[in-house]
C-alpha cells in the first residue's frame, strides 16, 4: 500500500497554536478547497466523487454563509479524516459527525470530535439545545456523549442502512446547564396525550373500478378523498385558507404566503427521476374541492426513509377522518410505490391533536426533541414518531393483543 506522508517536512503541525477544538489525536478547522484531495474521507456521501468535483462543491459551499462544514484533521500528519457539519436551526442547532469508516480508529476519533464540539458549543458559544444524531452502532461516540452529560432523547428505529443491516438513529441532546437550572429538565415533564392512541384499520383504496374515469389527475383514490399533483389553483386555494386560519398551535404561528411562493415551492421540484420532496394535494371526492395537502420530505433513497406531513386547510374539514384517509394513501405511496422502509414525523408537543392523529395512523412515539424552538417564556419540545413498512402492512390487531416484534436491529 502507498504511504501518504503529508507532513514529512520539519514544519510544525497545523494545529500548533490553535487554542480550541484541538484534541489528543485530531483537531477541527473550517473546510478548505485543498481538502477536496481527501473527499471520500471528508464528505459523507454514498457515491464516489473525484477531488476535482469535490473542489467545486467546497468552493460553492464556502460562498454560502450557511455552509457549516468543518474538517476533522489528524494531528500527527494533518491528514483530513472526516468532517463535522453544523446546521443552524433556531435555538437548537444540529451537529453531524462523519469519520471515514475505513480508518481502524474511526470510532475513537468520532468520540473525540464530540468531546471537543459539545463543550465548545454548549459551554462557550452558549447554544441552548444542541441536537446530536448518532447511529446506534457508534458505541464509542455514544459513550462519549453520555460522559459529556448528553441525554438520549429519541430513537428512530431502523432509519439507517449500514453494511447490509438496519441500524437505529439515536438523537442525543446537550442542553445548556444554566438554562436547565433556570427552567428544570424538560424530560421531567410528562408527555400530554389525547385520544385513545389505538391504531385504526386502513380504509380500502385502489383502482377506478366501474367508473369510466378516475377523478381529474388522481394518483391514489380513497373512499372520500384522492391525492393529485399540486397545480396553480390548488396553491391559490391554500393561500386563501392561510388568511382565515384560526389555529396557532400547529407548531408554528400562522403563515401568510402568496400564491406565487407556494406554487414555486411545490411545483418547482424536479419531476424527472428521484427527488427528496413529493407534495400531493388532497381533494374531497364528493365535491372535487382541494381541502389540504400532504407529502414526503427529506426522502433518503439509500436509507429508504422520509418525513411525512399533512395539513387540512379548512377547519371545517378537520376531525372527520379525511386527514386519516389521505395519510393512509400517502403511506401506501411511501411504502408500496417508493419502497421506503421507515417514515418519521415531527409534531410540536403542544399539538395534541396531530400527535393523537399520528398514533391512530399507526405511528409509534420515538421520543422528544427538547427545546427545539422558543415559546411564550419557555422553550418548546417536539414529539417525534416513526413507522416501519412492515408495521404499516401488518393487520391491525385488537389492542389487547401484543404486536410481535421480530425486527433485527442494533439499538
Amino acid at each position, binding site marked *: 500500500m*502507498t504511504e501518504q506522508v503529508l507532513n514529512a517536512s520539519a514544519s510544525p503541525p497545523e494545529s500548533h497554536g490553535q487554542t480550541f477544538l484541538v484534541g489528543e489525536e485530531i483537531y477541527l478547522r473550517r473546510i478548505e478547497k485543498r481538502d477536496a484531495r481527501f473527499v471520500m474521507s471528508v464528505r459523507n456521501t454514498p457515491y464516489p466523487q473525484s477531488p*476535482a468535483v469535490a473542489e467545486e462543491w467546497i468552493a460553492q459551499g464556502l460562498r454560502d454563509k450557511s455552509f457549516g462544514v468543518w474538517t476533522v484533521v489528524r494531528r500527527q500528519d494533518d491528514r483530513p479524516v472526516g468532517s463535522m457539519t453544523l446546521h443552524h436551526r433556531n435555538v437548537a442547532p444540529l451537529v453531524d459527525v462523519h469519520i471515514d469508516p475505513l480508518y481502524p480508529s474511526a470510532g475513537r476519533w468520532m468520540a473525540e470530535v464530540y468531546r471537543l464540539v459539545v463543550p465548545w458549543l454548549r459551554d462557550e458559544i452558549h447554544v441552548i439545545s444542541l441536537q446530536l444524531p448518532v447511529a446506534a452502532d457508534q458505541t464509542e461516540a455514544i459513550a462519549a456523549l453520555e460522559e459529556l452529560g448528553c441525554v438520549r432523547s429519541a430513537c428512530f428505529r431502523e432509519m439507517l442502512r449500514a453494511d447490509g443491516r438496519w441500524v437505529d438513529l439515536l438523537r442525543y441532546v446537550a442542553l445548556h446547564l444554566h438554562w436547565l437550572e433556570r427552567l428544570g429538565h424538560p424530560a421531567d415533564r410528562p408527555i400530554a396525550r389525547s385520544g385513545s392512541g389505538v391504531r385504526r384499520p386502513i380504509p380500502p383504496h385502489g*383502482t377506478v373500478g366501474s*367508473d369510466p374515469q378516475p377523478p381529474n389527475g388522481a394518483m391514489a383514490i380513497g373512499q372520500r378523498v384522492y391525492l393529485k399533483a*399540486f397545480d396553480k389553483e390548488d396553491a391559490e386555494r391554500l393561500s386563501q385558507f392561510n388568511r382565515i386560519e384560526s389555529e396557532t398551535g400547529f407548531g408554528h404561528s400562522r403563515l401568510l404566503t402568496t400564491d406565487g411562493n407556494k406554487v414555486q415551492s411545490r411545483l418547482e421540484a424536479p419531476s424527472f427521476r428521484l427527488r427528496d420532496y413529493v407534495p400531493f394535494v388532497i381533494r374531497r371526492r364528493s365535491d372535487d374541492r382541494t381541502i389540504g395537502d400532504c407529502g414526503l420530505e427529506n426522502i433518503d433513497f439509500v436509507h429508504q426513509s422520509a418525513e411525512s406531513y399533512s395539513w387540512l386547510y379548512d377547519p371545517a374539514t378537520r376531525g372527520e377522518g379525511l386527514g386519516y384517509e389521505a395519510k393512509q394513501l400517502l403511506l401506501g405511496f411511501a411504502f408500496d410505490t417508493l419502497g421506503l422502509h421507515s417514515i418519521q414525523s415531527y409534531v410540536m408537543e403542544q399539538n395534541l391533536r396531530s400527535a393523537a392523529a399520528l398514533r391512530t395512523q399507526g405511528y409509534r412515539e420515538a421520543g422528544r426533541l427538547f427545546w427545539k424552538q422558543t415559546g411564550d417564556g419557555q422553550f418548546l419540545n417536539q414529539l417525534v414518531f416513526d413507522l416501519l413498512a412492515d408495521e404499516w402492512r401488518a393487520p391491525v390487531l385488537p389492542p389487547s393483543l401484543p404486536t410481535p416484534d421480530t425486527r433485527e436491529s442494533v439499538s
Partner: protein
Amino acid sequence: MTAPETIDPSQAAGRLPGTGYTEQTFLVGETVYLRPIEASDAKDATAWRDTIFPVSTARTEDYIKETIDKQDPFKEITLALVRKADDVVVGSIRASFSDLFADFSGHVDPLYGEQGQTWKAEGLVLAAQWVVNEQHAISGLCQLPASESIVIEMLNGAGFREAARFREWFLRDGHRVDKVALEYLNPGWVSALGDPAAVELQRSGTGEARPVPEKTVSEGDPPENAMLIGTRVYLRPPTREDIEEIVRYARRETETFFDIGRHMPDVEGFAAWSDRQQKQEFPEAVRFAVCLRESGEVIGEVSLFELDLINRTAETASFFHRPEYRGGGYGSEAKQLLLEYAFDRLGLHVLQSWVFFPNTRSAAALRKQGYTEAGRIHWRFANDGSWDSFVVFDILAREWRAMPRAS
C-alpha cells in the same frame, strides 16, 4: 364519484368525441389509437407521464416543450395512447431506437386497473408493428413487470415472445415481481436468417461460482479516497487522469470481442460525462477506478449503470484497460467489492449484466462471480454478416449473501 373536469380534446378541436382517429390511416387499434403528444395534453399528465411522482400541469407544459417537442423521431418518440370511444388520453407509448434496434415501453394510468392493461398492450402492439414491420427495424424489445399478465399475454399472442426473465426486478404495490423481456423480431429477417434462439450459446469455464473474499479490514491508513478495500485491489472515485490513461490504453487494445470491435473514446467527452454523473444528487451511473493496493496504479473500472433506487436495481459492468491484469482474478475481486457496495451500501435488491454473445470470457466470469443466466436478448447488433445477441444474467442480494466466503 364526481364527473371528471376534463375538456374533451376533440370538442376543443371542433370534432365530435370519438372521432379523433377517423382520418388517421395507421396506429389505430380496436379500442385505442396513438397520436403525437400535444400541448393540451399537459392537463392529463397523470394519465400519460411515465413517472410515479405527481407532476403538475404547469411543469408538464414545460416538459412537452422542452423534451417531447425536441425528440428526434429517428431516436425516440412518445405518443399519446388515446381511447377511441371518447378521445380521452389514457396513457402513452414510447419507442426509442439504437440504430436498427428498437425498445418499447408504455404507461397507462394505473387507476384504470385491468382495463388499462388491455389498452397498453394494444398500443405496444401497434407501435411494434409500425416500427418493425413498416419501418424495418430488426428487432423490438419490451420489458414489463410480470404482474402485467394481461399485457404479456396479449403481446405473446401478437408476435412477441419471452426472451429473458430478470427475477424480482420491479417493486409493484409493495411486492417484488420479475421483469419479463419480450422481443419482437422482424419476420422477414427471421425467414432469411432463421430463428436466433436456435443458435447454441458457446460457454467456457466451469460455470461454478467461487467463494466471495471475506471483507478486508484495513490495519493502517486506507489508500487515499478508497471506498472499498480488497486483498489486492481497492475502489476509489475515478479522476480525469484515470480517464486519460484509459483512453491511452484504448488506442493500444488488441482484443476485439469485448464489444462490437474496438472503440476509441475521447478524453473530453468521457470526462464531461463522468463529471456530470458525479455531480448529480441521484446519479444514474456510479463508476469506480480499480487500483492496485501495492502501487496505487489504476488497472480498470467497475460500474453500476441505470441505478434505480426505487426498484433497487442496476446493471453492472467492468473493464480492465491493462491487459496484464485480465484473467488473474483481479476482475473478480473488484467485482465482489462492487457487489458489496451495491447490496450492502446502497441496499439494491437485484443486479443484471448483459454480455455480447461472442464474449464467452466475460460470461464465464459472471457465472464464477455468482450470476445466473436470465435468458438471451436476440438481434441487438450487427456481427459478421448477421445480427447478433446478448446473453443476460442476474444476481439477487440474498443469493450473493448466501455465497460461501473465502477466508
